[in-house]
């Protein structure tokens, strides 16, 4: 299991197909959620305990619209892909439809992410909150 060393670029060039790409994205979005939640909890803690300017600035940053879109992307992708992995792991016959399930996952993801993201982006462009 140990002893392989694959960077992001090699993994992207590796022709493992769509399975490798959704796996990489699952990791990146998972780390994104972990980063956001940790920053959020720690900043909220220091804001309540000290009410200092740094945690106030961090709070304003993670409540901004671009971060909202990023977090929404990470959470929705990680949830949908994780659900697919769950179903395939606990009911292996579904692995026959592995590729189709990935396409189904994207078919759900694109509109459910795209619509709110479009409206948030519209708010950024038009300057409305």
């Amino acid at each position, binding site marked *: *299991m*140990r*002893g392989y060393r694959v960077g992001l670029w090699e993994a992207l060039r590796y022709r493992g197909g769509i399975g490798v790409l959704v796996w990489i994205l699952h*990791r990146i979005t*998972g780390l994104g959620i972990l980063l956001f939640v940790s920053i959020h909890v720690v900043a909220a803690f220091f804001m309540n305990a000290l009410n200092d300017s740094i945690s106030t600035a961090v709070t304003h940053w993670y409540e901004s619209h671009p971060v*909202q879109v990023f977090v929404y992307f990470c959470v929705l992708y990680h949830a949908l892909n994780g659900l697919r992995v769950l179903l395939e792991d606990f009911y292996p016959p579904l692995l026959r439809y592995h590729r189709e399930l990935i396409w189904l996952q994207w078919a759900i993801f694109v509109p459910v992410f795209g619509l709110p993201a479009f409206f948030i982006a519209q708010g950024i462009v038009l300057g409305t909150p």
Partner: protein
Amino acid sequence: MRRSVECNGLEYYLWLFTRLSAIMMLFAGAAGIVYANLLGRTVMDAPAQYRWAFFPIYWHVQNTGVPDVFPLWSNAFWRVCCTILLFIASLHGFNGLRVVVEDYVHRSTLLVLLKGLIVLLFMFVFGAGTVIIFEWF
């Protein structure tokens, strides 16, 4: 994702924990969003939806247009539930970080150091979150 795992030992239980906690968080998030949107008296914006998804403790969802948040989402029982949910979610997250680190770090001393750091970070985030949930300031 689908790594080869032995069917015993800690690694297997963490593998299983990742899946079971994922089911729990999916249901908790879906329940929060459905509840808020059924009872909400205004159209909720994205941050309000996020807050109801993860997670509804009263100071977190006070300004989202859902009435009577204070008595229902502030009692001790619900705070304990939220603490358990925070524990499960942060363990899911930091265990995932451990899996990623183990895939990329091969020097054993560095790996031990990084794992220790992950445990410390986990304890700090969970501790800080618990303090906020119970408002021990």
